């Protein structure tokens, strides 16, 4: 296990270096002028050059990269050209919203995926049409699905709010920035319900695609496992079908589904950008979109690093979960090592 953690940390460093290098290369070739975008169209050339010098953008790119890496080592990602605050402060401000949304969506995707996998493998009444319906929703572009859900639950039924994280009647007073946790800390059920209402459509929108993917892999894996001898033995012992599936089949069938879940949660981070735009969710996706529009490279690099870390961490967690779910992998791992 410790070897795996060391390997993961090593690979994380490599991934982050490659990511920062990639963004710097993009910065070099992209025909965009972040300085002009920051100071305004009619700013004099003198002002533009002064700002360029202040940011070090008049230096050769390798020098800029080395300076950037040095700053990052000291926890300094620079200031956003757009918000004029430290990028790290901005990320700290926006990240809880994204993490809360992504976590809820991931949990929902896992829950729905398992439900769909079990149901469709079971072949009960309506499982086919449920599969087709979810597939149809999952195939729809995220922005289209978002607008569709908004039209239904906000525009037509008036059940759920359209945007944001909280109604104006509630104010998040911290301390974590995660509204569900904060409302529980403050024992404020009204705020909790309000936060969940705001979370509902974006989370569903984000979760449907991964849920279908996880469900389909789980179904096929379950169908394979249910043909195994040990399952027949379990049935012969008189265990109920429910117990056979939960105690024997599900755990053994979960490996491919967990791999898929890791992949899907990574992709889910990409989907967050679109969902946050549609639902005005004040998270990293919104921050990213606004930063890209103005070529705010310090912010773009900061977000890239954070998302890179998140992606690698998620996959490491999935690896651990796979080891827990399937002890045989530990043996194989040791044998290979």
């Amino acid at each position: 296990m410790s070897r795996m953690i060391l390997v993961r940390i090593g690979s994380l460093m490599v991934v982050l270096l490659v990511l920062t290098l990639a963004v710097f290369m993009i910065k070099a070739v992209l025909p965009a002028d972040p300085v002009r975008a920051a100071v305004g169209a009619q700013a004099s050339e003198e002002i533009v050059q002064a700002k360029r010098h202040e940011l070090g953008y008049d230096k050769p790119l390798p020098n800029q990269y080395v300076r950037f890496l040095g700053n990052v080592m000291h926890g300094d990602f620079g200031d956003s050209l757009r918000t004029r605050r430290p990028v790290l402060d901005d990320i700290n401000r926006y990240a809880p919203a994204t993490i809360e949304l992504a976590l809820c969506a991931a949990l929902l995707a896992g829950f729905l995926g398992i439900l769909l996998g079990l149901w469709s493998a079971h072949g009960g009444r309506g499982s086919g049409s449920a599969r087709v319906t979810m597939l149809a929703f999952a195939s729809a572009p995220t922005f289209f699905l978002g607008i569709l859900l908004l039209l239904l639950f906000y525009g037509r039924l008036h059940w759920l709010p359209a945007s944001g994280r909280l109604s104006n009647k509630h104010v998040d007073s911290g301390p974590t920035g995660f509204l569900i946790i904060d409302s529980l800390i403050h024992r404020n059920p009204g705020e909790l319900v309000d936060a969940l209402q705001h979370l509902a459509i974006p989370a569903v929108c984000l979760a449907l695609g991964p849920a279908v993917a996880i469900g389909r892999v789980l179904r096929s894996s379950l169908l394979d496992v249910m043909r195994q001898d040990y399952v027949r033995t379990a049935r012969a012992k008189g265990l109920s079908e429910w117990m056979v599936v939960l105690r024997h089949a599900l755990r053994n069938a979960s490996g491919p589904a967990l791999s898929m879940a890791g992949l899907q949660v990574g992709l889910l981070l990409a989907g967050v950008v679109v969902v946050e735009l549609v639902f005005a969710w004040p998270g990293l996706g919104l921050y990213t979109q606004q930063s890209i529009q103005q070529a705010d490279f310090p912010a773009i690099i900061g977000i890239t690093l954070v998302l890179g870390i998140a992606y690698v961490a998620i996959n490491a967690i999935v690896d651990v979960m796979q080891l827990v779910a399937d002890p045989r992998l530990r043996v194989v791992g040791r044998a290979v090592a």
Partner: protein
Amino acid sequence: MPRRKTDHPRTRWLRLAALVAALALAVAACGGTSSGNASSGNNGGGNGGAASTTLRTAFVADMQVPDPDIFYETEGNQVVMSTYEGLVRYQQNPPTNALEGLLATSWEKSADGKTYTFHLRSNVKFEDGTPMDSAAAKASFERRPKVNQGPAYMLAQVASYGTPDPLTFVVNLKQPVSAFMDYLAAPYGPKLLSPTAMTKYAKGGDFTQGYLKTHSIGTGPYYIKSFTLGQQYVLAANPNYWGAKPKITTIEINIVPDLSTQQLKIEGGDLDILHNLPAATTNTFKTKSGFQVITIPALQKSVLKINPQKAPFNDLSLRQALRAAIDRNKLTSEIYGNLGTVSTQMLPAGMQPAGTGLDSYTYDPTLLPAAVKKLPSSSKSITIAYASGFVNDQRTAEAIQKVLADAGFNAKVTPITLAQFFALRDQPESKVPNLLVETANPDAAHPDTYLRIFFNTGGFLNYVKGGSKAADAEMDRGLYTNDPAVVKDAYEKASQLVHDSATFVTIADVKGTFVATTKLKGWTSTGAAPLSLNFQSATLG
């Protein structure tokens, strides 16, 4: 999967599904309707029965910092114009380009045009209670070049300031600048800031920039109560405001990037006014019960920019043929309906006297196909760019694409970001698109503020480097003079020379447009500031 008769898995599944559905419904039902505000209410018209004191609107993105010496874009004008005031402003009711006093009640200009003396309004206080006087004006004006950001150019010709008494403020210029008073009236012009707050909140020689990222220290009818990036800005009525107290005591500005979501929210009663909807969507609100479409004169012009630096449009006759193929009447009608008027002048309507600075040509669609036939096939593939997110410009570009295709061009329409737009001037010619469509506004109502930035060969937003050196010289002649006749003549000649270069085809004068609940009444224009209204005297219901 085989099933045993003793199990009832289907029943279990149904129970589980019912439980999940019940939980979801409970969450949805607990909070009732979707209203995001205690004062919000019914659909199709915003706030419910009684008059509301809270106005709710939306921005598509965070504004720059609300510091009046840094802020230099359009989204966010509502915040700066509501919280700060300058010495003068453009007349608001009815909206014209004439100047009227704001924090100055009157002013005089010296005979040589180099000295301006402003008589300040008495009994004005900043939002923190500090009295407004000439020392405050001097400190505010002096801050701008120290901060040295985009709008600093407006005071670049200032030589010195004088404060002979608390209510007299003198500005001495190095040379006459015909646009100087317009700079002062511009939305990005110098505003007055509380000297007490400037001193109190300055940190490490930052000229209070850190504090002003989220706070205001002006004399406007509102102040910034809260400023939460990515979420919401709240403006509240300034208790120390010198004028009539606003009836709308709170303005909530929500960040809602998606225009469809904005539209749904105003239809759902969660917003009271919007300013970013595309013309086609805005026009649909004219017939919707409970809504009004507000239009105000705005210095916005939709322009096709033709790149003369590379083939095929490095040929004047081809540029003229392209211009002749653009049916402005049809384009304006299709894209804007009555939210725009067909352009007749090079500058936005109202910036030059009627009948001057004309952009006249005869529509003739036969010239372009004939000219294209003579072109080598390598010159027939061209690109039309527009700023991403600008739906009206996209539609204009697509309409022009059809004109070009009919003439034999293979034209591609491509969106680019604003940052890419700003970098075009530094790109090699091969990377600059052949054509660009842009709707933009100047900083103020003076002709120089449009001509110099968009049509001067060295203008920062003259991406295609169109126009001519002769026109540039006329602009300089018009700016650095104290003679109104020279000003009029110089800018008229500059406009004519730019027209003759056939590098810019003006299409439409675009009105400032808002969709609002019918309960909103009493607003006024904010002069040359796009995307904002003055709500000081407005009511809701």
